């Protein structure tokens, strides 16, 4: 109950193209986006990192105008699962680290 009231508190005037639903989902979506981007930046491997960042951006952008609450909930749950996947993969990648790729190496003078 207290959680619901707290989410009501974060109501913002929706004046952009994002979903105009109940206040809880907008703040949730934005914080999910932020967390996904932050975790994706921690990938040690160049390929995984760029793919994850690109996919997160594209995924959020294509579902910008979804209005149906059921699809919204499904998408938010998917995003949460992907966040858990990314976190696990980041720690695995840090355990078994590989050499840096050519793109990432410091330029040889």
């Amino acid at each position: 109950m207290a959680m619901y009231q707290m989410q009501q508190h974060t109501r913002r005037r929706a004046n952009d193209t994002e979903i105009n639903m109940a206040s809880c989902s907008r703040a949730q979506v934005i914080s999910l986006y932020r967390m996904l981007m932050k975790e994706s930046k921690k990938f040690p491997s160049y390929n995984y990192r760029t793919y994850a960042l690109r996919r997160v951006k594209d995924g959020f952008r294509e579902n910008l105008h979804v209005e149906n609450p059921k699809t919204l909930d499904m998408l938010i749950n998917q995003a949460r699962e992907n966040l858990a996947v990314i976190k696990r993969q980041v720690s695995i990648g840090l355990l078994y680290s590989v050499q840096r790729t050519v793109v990432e190496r410091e330029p040889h003078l």
Partner: protein
Amino acid sequence: MRICSLVHCGSGLRNMAARIIARCVRSLNQRSVYFNRVNTAATLTAAPLTHGRTFSHLTNGHKSSLAQISGGSFQVFQWRQYGDLPPLSLETIHDRVLYVLKLYDKINPERLQATSHFMKDLGLDSLDQVEIIMAMEDEFGFEIPDAEAEKLMTPHEIVQYIADKKDVYE
């Protein structure tokens, strides 16, 4: 001095000279002797101090013996270097914020000003605003919490917020 007298005597045996030099070095702690061109352990350890390299710590006993050896002509430099970022000023914060914004490909650099609103003037999204704030976090190296990040809608506000957090005054 003992060594000079030996050289002058012309005792050509290198072994003997080396042994006597070694004996002189052992008795170094009690005398303040100035060696010029002798390649002993004493001068080898004194060399780092004269070139003024940084030390993390120098024990007391070590210092006193080397100070004795160094005498008057060597200068002992010792300084510490702490790692920190260069100090910020309002101007540099402003320049860096605008630089990061110009690098963002969804913003037209000609239309960018300090007071241009991200959503009204530049036509950006709330998702884009999140990306911009994350770029600012990377640039300045400190976290901006979600609640405050949502309110930053112009470059001027971002500059003010960073100056607030980093205690930068005019």
